[in-house]
């Protein structure tokens, strides 16, 4: 019998999934980058890398919750685009208005998803596909199909372009807080455990008397809100409300979640490993840029796509190898 009170690193990192592979690959890729490229581990690269990837980490974590219930949310990218436009419009009133405004808008779209899925029983894939189209259309309509300038005079730009306490960008600090909070929710609250149970067996969860619908509403609303936060990061860090952004973000979020070892069918997975997955996928771009900069071989954009696919393949293989060796330990 295992002593569960002892600190078991592997189990801790896995959080109950098959997520060890993501951490192994992450460490390997970082080592590769540090050893191969000058300036890779420089402060500028680290902070700009994290600043850009904060958006993806946030939506990936939201996506993780959705996937844990066995659902999927294709609308996150469009939600981010929509809320970035909204945030840009609100930016003259300052961060204190624009941030909550955009997050609430994301929450509302997430709520709409929940309505379709829970009340109208539309499959998540289709419901969120529709909101993906709808939010994109909405973003174009309210922006008049233009990018919307933010107010450079207000404190709104501080979020995406300045460092907290002169150390790390504010986006990273906020992301870290969100990740830790959601980790606590998943691991230590009844709601979080219900999310996992719903993914593990919806009927069974109903019969166990768990709040299945509540959990579903929660995850879609959460994912929407995360999309909203990503939209704020986008507007504030990239200077404008951008109705055309967010294309394909849902797939990279899904990939991050899965690379993090979460089962797409739900019921098992971890927040921490999802972050690892998101970082890992982001690092591929970063490394490709550095590789091009070394000038030995110049990779065309097409080869880069091939390499990214191949990399995903490698991580997935590693994942499945490790998964077959570590038998799922949970709480």
């Amino acid at each position, binding site marked *: *019998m*295992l002593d*569960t009170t002892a600190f078991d690193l592997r189990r801790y990192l896995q959080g109950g999934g098959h997520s060890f592979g993501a951490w192994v690959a992450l460490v390997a890729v970082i080592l590769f980058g540090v050893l191969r490229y000058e300036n890779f581990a420089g402060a500028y690269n680290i902070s700009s890398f994290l600043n850009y990837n904060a958006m993806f980490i946030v939506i990936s974590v939201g996506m993780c919750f959705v996937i844990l219930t066995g659902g999927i949310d294709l609308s996150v990218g469009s939600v981010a685009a929509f809320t970035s436009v909204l945030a840009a419009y609100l930016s003259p009133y300052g961060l204190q208005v624009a941030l909550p405004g955009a997050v609430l808008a994301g929450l509302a779209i997430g709520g709409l998803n929940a309505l379709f899925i829970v009340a109208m029983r539309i499959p998540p894939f289709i419901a969120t596909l529709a909101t993906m189209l709808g939010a994109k259309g909405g973003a174009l309509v309210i922006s008049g199909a233009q990018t919307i300038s933010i107010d450079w005079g207000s404190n709104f730009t501080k979020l995406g372009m300045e460092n907290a306490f002169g150390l790390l960008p504010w986006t990273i600090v906020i992301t870290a807080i969100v990740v830790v909070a959601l980790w606590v929710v998943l691991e230590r609250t009844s709601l979080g455990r219900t999310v996992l*149970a719903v993914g593990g067996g919806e009927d069974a969860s109903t019969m166990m008397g768990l709040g299945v619908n509540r959990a579903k509403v929660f995850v879609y609303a959460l994912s929407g809100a995360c999309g909203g936060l990503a939209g704020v990061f986008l507007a504030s860090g990239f200077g404008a409300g951008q109705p055309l952004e967010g294309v394909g973000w849902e797939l990279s979020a899904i990939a991050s979640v899965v690379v993090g070892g979460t*089962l797409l069918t739900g*019921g098992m997975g971890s927040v921490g490993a999802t972050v690892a997955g998101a970082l890992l996928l982001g690092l591929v771009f970063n490394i490709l840029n550095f590789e091009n900069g070394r000038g030995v071989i110049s990779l065309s954009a097409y080869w880069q796509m091939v390499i990214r696919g191949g990399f995903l393949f490698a991580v997935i293989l590693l994942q499945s190898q490790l998964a077959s060796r570590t038998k*799922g330990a949970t709480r």
Partner: protein
Amino acid sequence: MTDLIEMIGIEKSFAGIRALQTASLSIRPGEVHAIIGQNGAGKSTLIKILTGVYRRDAGEVRMNGAPLAISTPREAQDAGIATIYQELSLVPLRSVTENVVMGYEPRTRLGLIDWKAAHARTREILARFGVEIDVTRQLGSYSTAIQQLVAIARAVSLDARLVIMDEATSSLDDQEIATLFSVVRSLKAAGVAVIYISHFLNELYQVCDRVTIMRDGRSVATHEVAQTTKLGLVSEMLGRDAGEIEAAGLTALSGGHGDPGEVLLEARGMRSKTGLRDTSFSIRKREIVGLGGLLGSGRTEAARAVFGLDPLAEGEVRHHSGAPVDTPAQAIALGMGFLTEDRKADGIIPHMSVRENITLALLPRLTRMGMVDRERERKLVAHYIEALQIKTSGMEQPIRELSGGNQQKVLLARWLALEPEILILDEPTRGVDVGAKFEIQSIIRKQVAEGLAVLLISSEFEELVEGADRIVVLQDGRSVSELQNPGVTEGALINAIAHHHERSAA
């Protein structure tokens, strides 16, 4: 004294098919109340209406005399009704602890889940059932029996006024059933009422106070258990004359013990990751070989290995043809069949019709040039529905709509239709009513007489002792002894299991 629960004139139809008509039930506080009835009589449906899984079409439910409005299982739990459903309703991907405490987790002062306390509580509750396992592991990694015990543990820990057990003992062995009964008695002593649904009539006499008999969606009678006879109950259940039933007898596996033929399959020194350490046995033509043992002794694992489902680390399975058995497809091609113990996970294809479920394994043989011969398929299916008396609205009804026992019959038909040489039956009569059990057993016996070889796994010692020609006793993944019929008694079997158990424990 007012009844704790009163259900009057309950009606329920599914897509036009009547499941319940004028069913009623009354439960007194602190009594153990049995519900019995044939497969498909409506027992589970009645329970699910009480606990809010289904909505009733008509009728009335009262609790302590007041009308009870429950529309979700959660509300039932909040009203003090804890239920163990027939189809296990747990989350196999999550840990044992979570499955026990989910929804009622102990909290720290910060309002967060206190996992240490949760694990401790779970261990303590399970200890009452004699189960000592790693509660942090996934529930799904444990056997059906353990899962069933976990479900019971959860229900019992909910502080309910009424605990409902829908065929909760179907995968338990005698020892665990005894433990369960002591828990039931202590619940009763604490004033908790228990609804107990089971096809094992013997059990009723051990713990139940009253019994309600259901037939074709109706409650036909309620008696004090002490005033009934087993025969009387059966005749009311089946709606047939008692004398007629007496003449036929109740267990049909016995008989036979004839002259077995040549060895068809031999397992030698099997060892596997799944828990087999050194298991050997052989199966001969015209013979039923029983596998006996306690839960976790490796019976299911032995069957899986023989059928080519789990790879062997050591040892071998030798089919008389000399061909290897590495995959189920090969096993089936060699004339083997395997009726699994977990009907929901390993057996039925829920969306598919009864017809498609029956011919699933046989299909390649019904196919000519890639095309299924539907004429033959229908004839065959009609034959088996008739022969096994499967209660269905037609061969196109989706199997998920059938009652548990009838699903079991469909799965048996799936394998019988193959006209196999060797049939592995893992708990073949689990959840099957007395009448159907009799039918199933006699079908098996008949097939054996015609040359079929059977490997029988059953937690019901009676079935094993009366049915098997030979019983191989397993202990911790090892075959430790073999008992030869005729001459085996339940006592002798228990002795053999216990004897070795003590020796290995020492």
